């Protein structure tokens, strides 16, 4: 059937600069550029271009430009180009539209409507270059009361403490499975996490055996509804176990790693046959209630000899705070909440763009709910979904989070340009593909260095902002909404966020 959808991008080649080196042809796995030997020139097919900018960056002559196509349908505020084209694609195929990455729709980004405080004259600011700044964070249940004994000046803790994760900076790498992302990308995340004193999350695709001894010390392993690659050794080699109930990009639905991405090594790690679809059902079929969840939490604590904190990850949806309260009571040590803009390797577009609530509102209502119920100490909160910079991190913590997960931000650090074709197995940046020709493009040492640099830069910026507020420990900012003010927000939004308007 002839497709009535026109190309998204326009490729402009400067023929004078182009040296016919055919680099662009090799760089593009989508087959956008081809060499015409008769004319001795390169021809680009706009229809195939996904706008990932790989050819642009790697053209040695700087001869290529990729921009959104200037073609347009008659402008119509209701029928946007995207709406028209999605409809045409569905009319042509009858399929559910898949996409990757996070929600790209113009929902209000609250981070950009919240401003931070700083000290002036009184309570002087602290210079982080001179004074120690404490960013170290402990994730897990804290006791209601701490019983200590002092003998000859020696303080001993008598209360039995729950296992906690210690992070040097409140930023962890979000769950991205081996299978969804390439081995090199997965390994780069693990390497950077270990180097920077934080943790990476394996996602639900298992942890390759050869990585367990080296990277288990900075791994959070996931148990999701597909239960891929899970054995007692996998659970025990890591420092924490996360039960994945939901994901911000696709709350309420399962996952589906297409057979194309189930390579031999992915099959071995997930312990499923080569080339089958790896289907994660929508719910865990052994969890239909909070009581069932409590059972899996306890089973995982048993399986790991009560040595690891257990995290439960849910998507932020309308009534999630009440559910989260149940999750804490079910014995979770950490709750990870993933907001509306959380990323994904594959999700139906209609779900990604329409389900869930913004993470900023979710953090605040969860923190408030747990405080009101007197159980905030029983678990830590990791916020995820739409964290783009260090100020987002610090605002999340002031709203009540203990730490954040970054997913898209980490991928962008490695080269991702959010072209949203993660499901295609053709990621030109070598991040989201199992094609060895493509994944080989991602150098683990360089990628992990870029990730460590990012964490280091953000940590310095967080220390600067903290010092500016006259605070020398992140702990003092946690849930401290007095340091936040809203700009351009409605009353109800200020109420949910629990912050005052600017100037108040």
């Amino acid at each position, binding site marked *: 059937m002839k497709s009535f959808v026109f190309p998204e991008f326009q490729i402009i080649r400067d023929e004078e600069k182009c040296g016919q080196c055919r680099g662009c042809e090799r760089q593009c796995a989508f087959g956008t550029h081809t060499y015409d030997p008769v004319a001795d020139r390169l021809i680009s097919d706009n229809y195939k271009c996904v706008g990932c900018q790989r050819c642009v960056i790697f053209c040695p002559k700087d001869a290529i430009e990729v921009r959104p196509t200037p073609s347009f349908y008659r402008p119509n505020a209701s029928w946007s180009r995207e709406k028209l084209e999605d409809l045409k694609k569905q009319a042509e195929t009858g399929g559910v*539209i898949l996409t990757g990455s996070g929600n790209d729709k113009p929902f209000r980004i609250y981070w950009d409507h919240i401003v931070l405080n700083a000290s002036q004259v009184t309570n002087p600011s602290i210079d982080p270059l001179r004074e120690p700044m404490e960013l170290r964070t402990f994730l897990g249940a804290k006791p209601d009361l701490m019983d200590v004994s002092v003998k000859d000046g020696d303080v001993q803790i008598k209360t039995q403490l729950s296992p906690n994760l210690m992070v040097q900076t409140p930023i962890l790498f979000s769950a991205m499975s081996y299978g969804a992302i390439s081995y090199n990308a997965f390994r780069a995340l693990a390497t950077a996490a270990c180097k920077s004193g934080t943790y990476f999350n394996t996602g639900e695709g298992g942890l390759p055996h050869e990585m367990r001894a080296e990277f288990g010390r900075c791994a959070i392993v996931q148990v999701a509804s*597909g*239960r891929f690659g899970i054995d007692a050794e996998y659970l025990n080699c890591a420092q924490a176990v996360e039960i994945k109930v939901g994901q911000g990009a696709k709350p309420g639905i399962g996952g589906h790693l297409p057979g194309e991405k189930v390579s031999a090594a992915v099959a071995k790690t997930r312990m*499923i046959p080569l080339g*089958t679809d790896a289907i994660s*059902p929508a719910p865990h079929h052994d969890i239909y209630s909070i009581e069932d969840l409590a059972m899996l939490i306890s089973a995982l604590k048993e399986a790991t000899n009560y040595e690891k904190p257990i995290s439960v990850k849910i998507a932020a949806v309308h009534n999630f705070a009440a559910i989260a309260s149940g999750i804490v009571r079910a014995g979770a040590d950490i709750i990870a909440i993933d907001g509306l803009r959380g990323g994904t390797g594959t999700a139906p577009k209609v779900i990604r763009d329409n389900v869930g609530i913004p993470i900023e509102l979710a953090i605040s209502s969860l923190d408030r709910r747990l405080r009101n119920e007197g159980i905030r100490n029983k678990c830590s909160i990791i916020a995820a979904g739409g964290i783009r910079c260090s100020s987002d991190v610090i605002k999340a913590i002031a709203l009540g989070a203990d730490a954040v997960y970054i997913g898209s931000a980490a991928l962008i650090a490695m080269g991702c340009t959010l072209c949203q074709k993660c499901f295609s197995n053709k990621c030109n940046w070598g991040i989201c593909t199992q094609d060895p020709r493509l994944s080989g493009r991602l150098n683990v040492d360089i990628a992990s260095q870029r990730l460590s640099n990012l964490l280091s830069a953000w940590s310095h910026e967080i220390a600067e902002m903290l010092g500016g507020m006259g605070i020398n420990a992140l702990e003092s900012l946690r849930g401290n909404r007095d340091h936040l003010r809203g700009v351009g927000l409605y009353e109800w939004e200020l109420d949910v966020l629990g912050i005052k308007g600017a100037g108040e």
Partner: protein
Amino acid sequence: MARAAASQTSVGADHIEERIAVAEIDATGLQTKELNDQLRDLLLSGIKKVNIRNVCGQRYIGTRLYTPEHLRMEIEIFGTPGNDLAAFLYGHKITVHGNAQDGVGNTMDGGEVIVKGRAGDVLAFSMRGGEIYVRDNCGYRTALHMKEYEDKKPVLVVGGCTQDFLGEYMAGGIVIILNLLDQTHKANFIGTGMHGGVIYLRGQVEPDQLGGQVEVTAIEEPDRSILDRYVSRFLERFPEIGMSQREIMQSQFYRLKPKSKRPYSNLYTY
């Protein structure tokens, strides 16, 4: 308290290990964690076999027995163990003299579970290795999302029948429902979303009891040898059934297999 019972009379340094080879735990009044603490201590002290008496609802028995050295233990349970018996089980053998509750063999990795009675719901959920034999019936959601990889192939044999959702999302392994009392299969939605593995049913099911992703055929010769092997193992474990291998193998079996290993590949567009 656990006590190591002298099971053999031989003496001498060489035989010390054997002398204390069987331990006993009286589970009366023990909380789940207390019972599992004792079980783990016994495993770490080198005990190879434990009898647990008066078990009444304690959960996760066998779950905390992973050791990096891969120590193995045989456990006999007298009474009724609670939910998630043998969850994540790592190569141990558990025999239940009585009924089991929900979640037997949840995400089990290897080993063997024998239930001399019935099992509850979510039996063998996401099981990925080892064998489970249940003498009588079992509940809903049996063998959901069971999966296999190369020679790691889980096997579940049930002497009776199951309820709805048998083998949903099944991705590998072998499930055999023997229906020895010749009941009418009542289960609906059998094998919905199935994309791997095989289910053998003794006795007939109607097409409307099956999920759309399953095809039913008569068994062939390779199936017969698989059935032979596991039916004989089943009968070895439950001699009280008093049926012969021939008697069972003569009856009509049906094979349920997925139509595709990629059932949803045509659902999407880009």
